[in-house]
């Protein structure tokens, strides 16, 4: 029971569930930015090369980096910068997809830490199929669709592996996800190592890159992005990600499939009792999560201005893991993931502005992100603070929860 207003008998507006979630996320963000500000001040004070004015500029860029339009006469200028905005949306695309992947899995009771591996498998599928089909003379639009679908399929299958282990052997998905991440990294490296045709040897001086799909005439259409944000890398991939997010929201909240998946996630035993196939649903939700994460990789490398460094066995893509904070910040809400993804990439853009325009480096942005990630784990705590001490009372004694309930009726 929520604490009720003494006059109206209704829950106070700021204690409504959805709103408290948003507020607690915003609190995390503000505290993260405040920490970033403190670091800028501390770094500025400790270095002779940074003046008081430099510190103020740094703080301005942390908050308004995406609005930065460079310098005019030595003074930072701000305004609408289509390049920054466009790049922000471009970089947000894979984050939205991996964020969705983590969020959807989490809603069904699974912690998908394997988004990085699924992302890599998707990338491999997209590039290999895209290039092969294009060489065979398929029309570009068909290649684009086929490459995306095959990439997502491959990611989905990759996600199924931890799902199967969880469902049939009750092995924790976190462990198998971490293992499949590294297996994917080595598998992808081996695949491109073994298939020289995909390597970009045509362009001199480039070593270790796969031929970009734009070289064979395949890239994501702009779909109005070039008019909105001229000069930026933004493309239609962002709209595709948004569309997928909306579709996921509909599936999770409006359909019997979402009902089943969430029931299994919330209480596997009750789902089984009700005749829902709990094993099937666990595997299915990992397949969906895998397909979503891999779509991030597919859309990124289909965009037309990216190149894949294939020797990846030592590193996993950061976007795979950054899906976790995106999902946390969005409180696992598919639509919230869009905004959380944009916000995270906005910080990236701000970091780059810091690097280009001031004596600071872009890692300040990473510190802010890290702080926010840390705080988003506290989101529940913030929620409780806003809602009053309701939960504490419920936990204190079961009987009290019932007492409260009695009171609600009377």
């Amino acid at each position, binding site marked *: 029971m929520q604490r009720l207003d003494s006059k109206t008998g209704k829950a106070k507006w700021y204690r409504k569930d959805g709103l408290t979630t948003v507020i607690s996320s915003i609190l995390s963000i503000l505290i993260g930015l405040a920490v970033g500000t403190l670091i800028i001040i501390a770094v500025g004070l400790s270095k002779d090369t940074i003046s008081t004015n430099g510190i103020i500029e740094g703080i301005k860029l942390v908050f308004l980096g995406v609005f930065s339009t460079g310098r005019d006469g030595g003074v930072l200028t701000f305004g609408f910068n289509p390049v920054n905005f466009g790049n922000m949306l471009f970089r947000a695309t894979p984050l939205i997809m991996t964020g969705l992947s983590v969020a959807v899995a989490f809603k069904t009771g699974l912690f998908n830490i394997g988004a990085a591996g699924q992302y890599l498998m998707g990338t491999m599928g997209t590039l290999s199929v895209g290039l092969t089909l294009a060489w065979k003379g398929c029309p570009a639009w068909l290649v684009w669709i086929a490459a995306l679908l095959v990439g997502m399929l491959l990611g989905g299958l990759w996600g199924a592996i931890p799902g199967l282990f969880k469902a049939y052997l009750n092995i924790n998905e976190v462990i198998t996800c971490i293992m499949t991440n590294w297996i994917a990294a080595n598998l992808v490296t081996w695949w491109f190592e073994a298939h020289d045709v995909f390597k970009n040897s045509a362009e001199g001086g480039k070593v270790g890159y796969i031929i970009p799909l734009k070289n064979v005439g395949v890239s994501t259409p702009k779909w109005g992005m070039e008019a909105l944000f001229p000069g930026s890398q933004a493309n239609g991939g962002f709209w595709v990600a948004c569309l997928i997010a909306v579709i996921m929201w509909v599936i999770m909240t409006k359909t*019997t499939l979402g009902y089943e998946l969430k*029931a299994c996630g919330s209480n596997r035993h*009750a789902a*089984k*009792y009700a005749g*829902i196939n709990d094993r099937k649903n666990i595997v299915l939700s990992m397949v969906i999560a895998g397909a979503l994460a891999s779509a991030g990789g597919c859309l990124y490398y289909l965009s037309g201005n990216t190149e894949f460094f294939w020797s990846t066995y030592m590193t996993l893509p950061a976007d795979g893991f950054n899906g976790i904070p995106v999902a946390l910040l969005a409180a696992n809400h598919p639509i919230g993931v869009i905004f959380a993804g944009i916000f995270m990439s906005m910080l990236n853009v701000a970091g780059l502005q810091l690097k280009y325009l001031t004596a600071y480096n872009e890692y300040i942005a990473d510190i802010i992100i890290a702080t926010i990630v840390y705080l988003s784990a506290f989101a529940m705590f913030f929620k409780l603070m806003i809602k009053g001490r309701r939960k504490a009372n419920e936990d204190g004694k079961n009987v009290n*929860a019932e*007492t409260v*309930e009695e009171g609600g009726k009377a």
Partner: protein
Amino acid sequence: MTSEYVIEMNHIRKEFPGIVANDDITLQLKKGEIHALLGENGAGKSTLMSVLFGLYQPEAGTIKKDGVEVKINNPNDATALGIGMVHQHFKLIEVFTVLDNIILGAETTDKLGFLKKKEAREKVMALSEKYGLKVNVDAKVEDITVGMQQRVEILKMLYRDNDILIFDEPTAVLTPQEIDELMEIMRGFAREGKSILFITHKLNEIMAVSDRVTVLRKGKYIGTVNTKDTNKQELSNMMVGRPVQLEIHKEPAKPTDVVLKVEGLSVPSKIHKNDAVKNVSFEVRKGEIVCIAGIDGNGQTELVHGLTGLEKASGGRIELLGKDISHASIKKRALAGMSHIPEDRHKHGLVLPYTLEQNMVLQRYKEDRFQHMGFIKFDEVREYTEKLIEEYDVRSGQGPVTVARSMSGGNQQKAIIARELDRDEPLIVAVQPTRGLDVGAIEHIHSQLVAERDRGKAILLISLELDEVLGLSDRILVLYEGEIVGELDPAKTTPEELGLYMSGAKRNVNNGKEDGQDAETRQ
């Protein structure tokens, strides 16, 4: 000046956000008496005891010990005043030994800080001897029975020299035999001059053991009466606030066609390698309530899991309405005509983070009535839930959108029963349908089950409560160590006879060993 009362709680008021849990409650405990505190779930009993034990601070009111006003800020203050409490859910460390658990928090050490375990052991042994509290002090708590765990909790109080003992629903987890033992122990304490506060909603126990009873209802003080001057009916009326039917009124059963036929069913155990249910055969017919009786842990859970498909049977045949469902999935069994009120309402019965309306369609969300092309028809679900709420009197804070977790236990159970009964299947498997509920809710659920029987349903009831077994069923099957050892007619048997079968001392069925034996005994 000494007071007649060892503890007095005067005009206690305790509020929680949006609710007054204790409203002007007075409780006076005499030295050497067993004082029962009676009330339904949510009446404020545990809150009042938590105030006495220092877990909550009251907004108003005073507490006196031996006539002197005291302030109890935390459980340590309570312990210093000689107040001890056995909680409903034991507060023991499973991997510690009994002795370690008893001395925890009250350890005595020598000058170098080493535990003086030998002295502690001697003291515990002496107490155990004196009050007949048999425990194995070196066993780990995880390895001992629930009854023995409770004795450990009692020894904890005695070890701290407490003379005011609070028992919070102590019998909820005990078998009938253990309950008798506990009653005897409590009487022994009272003779010693210790004062006992006994929280319960079971009237039999109050009549058996207490000297006086204080009744609470919805946070309010209703009255205090001498046990010898009252009776169960009066107490239950005070507790519920309206006349309650304690006896279950029902016409004799008129069973007709066989609905469920079980032949030689065996179900493996999760704990050991043998079968938990061994070669069990029985039938349930239309219009009768067949009760599986037995002490907890004799294969009841496994039998139900085998029947409903939650667990794979290792042998045997199950027929529902003439259709073999021995190997059918849970869903197919449900669709073939089986409702199941599960034993554990939190584990199986409800998806607690889901709302009431989402829980109401847990098995039915795929029916055309509630979905179209995979999209849930929210209006239909809402309407259906509102109908069930109305018909089955399910109460909750926010109606259909109440989160199941926030509902009281009684209403959670009512919601499950509403869902299962409304599916209108020919067979209802009801497992401990009234566990942990208060008198009012039990009465309601019993009359609903009888009504379903009279409508021609076949009901298989699994119960641990003797009153329920004898009062509700038309036929009793006693399960002992996974076998049906007796088939009894509730009208012709006594609790004592039933107890003999339940403890394995007597049997009148040799299942599977001689063909036709079942049928003969039934005549």
